[in-house]
């Protein structure tokens, strides 16, 4: 039934989801193998796979993938470690929010990629610089989103806790945090996706390893197959991390799905 908000059966859902991937690859194949697009600009799917295989087996691409994942996860965990407590504090205590909110709102619009030249000056082209790009890119977003989520906690739950004898600290610990934990996990999942964009940009400039570095290297060789393979690998890793996040959330917060 094709009507607004009408649910779709699991089998149909999977079929449709996979179907579009197939359609996409088919269109790509027709365009490239059919000779409609020059090989110089766009490799066909088969070349892409062959190039990818060569990358993995002969050129140590797995090491690049490992480097990129470590940078994203490292920078992101660092950002989350500081951003989540600050966001919770801002959401819970209005003076803290009044102090930081305007600055954080401003800082969140500063594009992380624009900091790369500066960060190279400050931190060189080593790992610290990469981590800092991710950190700047995710920290302010996380703080603001967590603060908003915590600030929107149902007031009646907070009031109920007070009438049950909670202290102020108790309300933060036993109401504000657990009430928003699933929301915070969801925010982390979302912002991690953005962090992937920053890491690639960081690797395009002044880097000797990583998926982004491979892509920029391949550009000078006009190896579009390798470039596309790199991009697809990023997509697949994103998909896997998304799936893991969702699975962990479902496990951690069963009350949400009940």
């Amino acid at each position, binding site marked *: 039934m094709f009507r607004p908000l009408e649910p779709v059966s699991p089998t149909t859902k999977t079929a449709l989801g996979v179907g579009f991937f197939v359609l996409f690859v088919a269109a790509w194949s027709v365009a490239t193998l059919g000779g409609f697009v020059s090989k110089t600009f766009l490799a066909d799917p088969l070349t892409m796979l062959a190039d990818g295989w060569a990358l993995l087996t002969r050129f140590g691409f797995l090491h690049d993938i490992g480097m990129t994942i470590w940078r994203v996860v490292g920078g992101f965990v660092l950002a989350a470690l500081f951003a989540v407590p600050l966001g919770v504090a801002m959401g819970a205590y209005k003076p803290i929010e009044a102090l930081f909110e305007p600055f954080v709102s401003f800082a969140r619009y500063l594009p992380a990629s624009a900091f790369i030249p500066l960060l190279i000056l400050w931190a060189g082209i080593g790992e610290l610089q990469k981590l800092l790009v991710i950190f700047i890119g995710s920290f302010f977003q996380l703080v603001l989103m967590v603060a908003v989520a915590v600030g929107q906690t*149902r007031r*009646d*739950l907070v*009031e*109920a*806790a*007070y*009438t*049950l*004898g*909670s*202290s102020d600290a*108790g309300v933060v610990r*036993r*109401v504000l945090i*657990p*009430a928003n*934990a699933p929301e915070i996990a969801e925010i982390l999942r979302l912002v991690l996706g953005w962090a992937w964009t920053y890491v690639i940009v960081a690797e395009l400039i002044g880097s000797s390893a990583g998926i982004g570095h491979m892509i920029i290297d391949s550009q000078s060789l006009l190896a579009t197959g390798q470039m596309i393979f790199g991009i697809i690998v990023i997509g697949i890793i994103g998909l896997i991390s998304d799936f893991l996040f969702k699975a962990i959330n479902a496990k951690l*917060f*069963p*009350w949400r799905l*009940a």
Partner: protein
Amino acid sequence: MKKLVIQDVSRTFPGHRGGAPVRALQPTTLEVETNDFITILGPSGCGKSTLLRIVAGLDHPTSGTVTMDGREITRPGPDRGMVFQSYTLFPWLTVEQNIMFGLAERGRPPAEQKDVAASFIERMGLKGFEHHWPKQLSGGMQQRTAIARALANDPDMLLLDEPFGALDNQTRALMQELLLGIWERDRKTVLFVTHDIEEAIFLANRCIVMSARPGRIKADIAIDLPHPRHYTLKTSPAFSELKARLTEEIRAEAVLAAAH
């Protein structure tokens, strides 16, 4: 013995965007005896919930004082258990954990928390649901859990703000009997806010009728119906007489409130 003294308490809410301030409650004085069951009856917006929230310590009076056992109330505390109209169980805690919440907050040993929760689960007919999430319960069960959660702290006073307002009629009647049964056994001081006349009579020893906004006490009526009360009481002549009288009192106010 006086449990609670509400002395000249008024509440005025500041106006929005430079509008005129809204007076929700005119200076009100009310004395509540220990272990009395008082219902506060009034049309919507008569300030009855505001009054209850002030007693709970969730709101502050613009003027006047509220004292319980001679001590002024300034903030909420576990000595005054509250049940809200909206479902306020903590959705991330099970029924049992919700009931234990207050005891846990006050650092009671886990064994005691479990015991208290078990006894309330039994009394409230929640057996078999102790490990359910609030989401999985009906409205009536959620409010039974909320009452259990408030009582688990063994408060001096129980404050209820239209707790059965969102329930269907049959469930509501059962909940009234359950609550009355608890009161007849435990004799707590109870303040119960409602706009339902039958409910106000059936539960109370004393019914306070409030006027339309700005709220003030319009009538203070003793409900001398014998305990234990049975649901058949609702069809007795004495009950009907009280109901007719309160209907008159409240109707005039509802008309006024509707005209605003």
